[in-house]
């Protein structure tokens, strides 16, 4: 029973969602849309589990004075302050984007921190490129040469030296690069069909405790 019920639910839901993709029949579309709404509701409820997980793990870490317990205090405190400040504004019926603590936290803490982490990507790209672009063997040499040509062709200096560089860079990006990418996309798309079919037919069932 524990196995069969989820399997039947998956098959029935899968049928309507796939049928909606192929058929233009209002009743099927309505049922599929309704099921998609249910899925969103279930997912929204699961946030409670996530918050409970955060509180349980971090509170235990603080109580047992684990090595990094100070960070856990900061995490729980900021989570509590942000949630309460947002809830107060919600209850008051005011605009979240107005002048209030919640918006202040969003504009002055959350956004700059997110942007900072994203900006770090530039340094990580530089360090990864330094390691990747080494002519250790023939394929790596090909990659290095194409990367150098694309980089020269994509900056004004390349065009100033010769019009060959931008044309060569465009050719590398639109012919060998696109061909390689399309190969991967075709393989991945077929993989998606395979995994989807196996899940709908119940051959592969990650939702059943990995059975």
């Amino acid at each position, binding site marked *: 029973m524990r196995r069969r019920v989820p399997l039947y639910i998956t098959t029935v839901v899968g049928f309507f969602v796939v049928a909606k993709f192929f058929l233009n029949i209002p009743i099927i579309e309505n049922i599929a849309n309704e099921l998609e709404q249910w899925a969103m509701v279930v*997912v929204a409820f699961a946030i409670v589990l*996530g918050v409970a997980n955060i509180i349980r793990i971090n509170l235990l870490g603080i109580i047992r004075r684990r090595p990094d317990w100070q960070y856990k205090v900061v995490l729980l405190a900021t989570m509590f302050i942000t949630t309460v400040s947002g809830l107060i504004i919600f209850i008051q019926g005011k605009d979240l984007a107005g002048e209030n603590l919640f918006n202040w936290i969003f504009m002055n803490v959350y956004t700059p921190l997110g942007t900072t982490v994203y900006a770090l990507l530039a340094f990580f790209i530089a360090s990864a490129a330094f390691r990747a672009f080494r002519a250790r063997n023939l394929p790596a040499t090909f990659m290095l040469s194409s990367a150098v040509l694309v980089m020269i062709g994509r900056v004004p200096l390349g065009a100033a030296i010769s019009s060959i560089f931008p044309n060569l860079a465009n050719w590398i990006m639109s012919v060998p690069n696109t061909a390689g990418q399309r190969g991967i996309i075709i393989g991945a798309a077929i993989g998606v*069909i395979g995994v989807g*079919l196996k899940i709908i037919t119940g051959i592969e069932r990650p939702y059943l405790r*990995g059975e």
Partner: protein
Amino acid sequence: MKVPRVIIFLLLYIAILLLPVAVMGEEPAESSSTPASHSYFKTEHKNVLVVLVFFGFFFFFFLRRARVGKKLFMRTIPGLKALEEAVGRATEMGKPVLYVPGIDDIDEIQTLASLNILPYVAEMTAKYGAPLIVPTRRSVVMSFAEEIVKEAHIRAGRPESFKPGNIRYLSDDQFAFTCAVDGIMLREKPAANIYLGAFYAESLILSETGFLSGAIQIAGTASIAQLPFFIAACDYTLIGEEFYAASAYLSQEPSLLAGIKASDYLKIIIFLLIIIGVVTASLEFSSIVDFIKAWF
């Protein structure tokens, strides 16, 4: 001859999908009450149906072959072969294994594919006695991962070694999640980092931090834009279809291997169609080109 239930199911399924078209016709006749013509079948999706039918045919063909005892060959995938090596290394060093199932929700097929691989990794870590940390960005994925890892520990005969605190929901925000995972890497120093699933801009931040922490790294994704980053920063990378083939490779179950063989044969058909398309388009055989365009 006993026909497998799944074959009956698939045939029934296709029949149900095509039934309205067969009964009502693709384009019902216009009447005064129906001002615009209405198609019961979304003809723009017929190419997907064609691929699905071909896939289904090959899948059940190879499933049948596997069930009568024919061995289905699958080439060695170095990234998956290295999984055991990575877990073994973590065990020897007495350090944990970090498994990131991507950052998308459960409705993303890559997350589901990653959760298909998680049981094997979890069982391996449970047998070896290495702690497994699974940080997640979505709470639904966390509850799935918790159940999967718990069950894997039970299967490995070590239910007492399961620690619910190692399956962690961190944050729904992309970069907050990234920072939290980076923090785990730098503080808890996992000996092996496994990134399998859908990744975006955080892929390189995670894998470079993992590289700096000295961990052996295995990645797998179908996100085209992130593959170069993983290839540059990780020791092994599962590219696109290899990632989807992982659960079949690890389990060696005939029903899963049949899916991989079906994918391979479908790729051969697509390869032939590309060649035919190139040749006929070059020779200006417009009728063949139009047929391929319309159906594939």
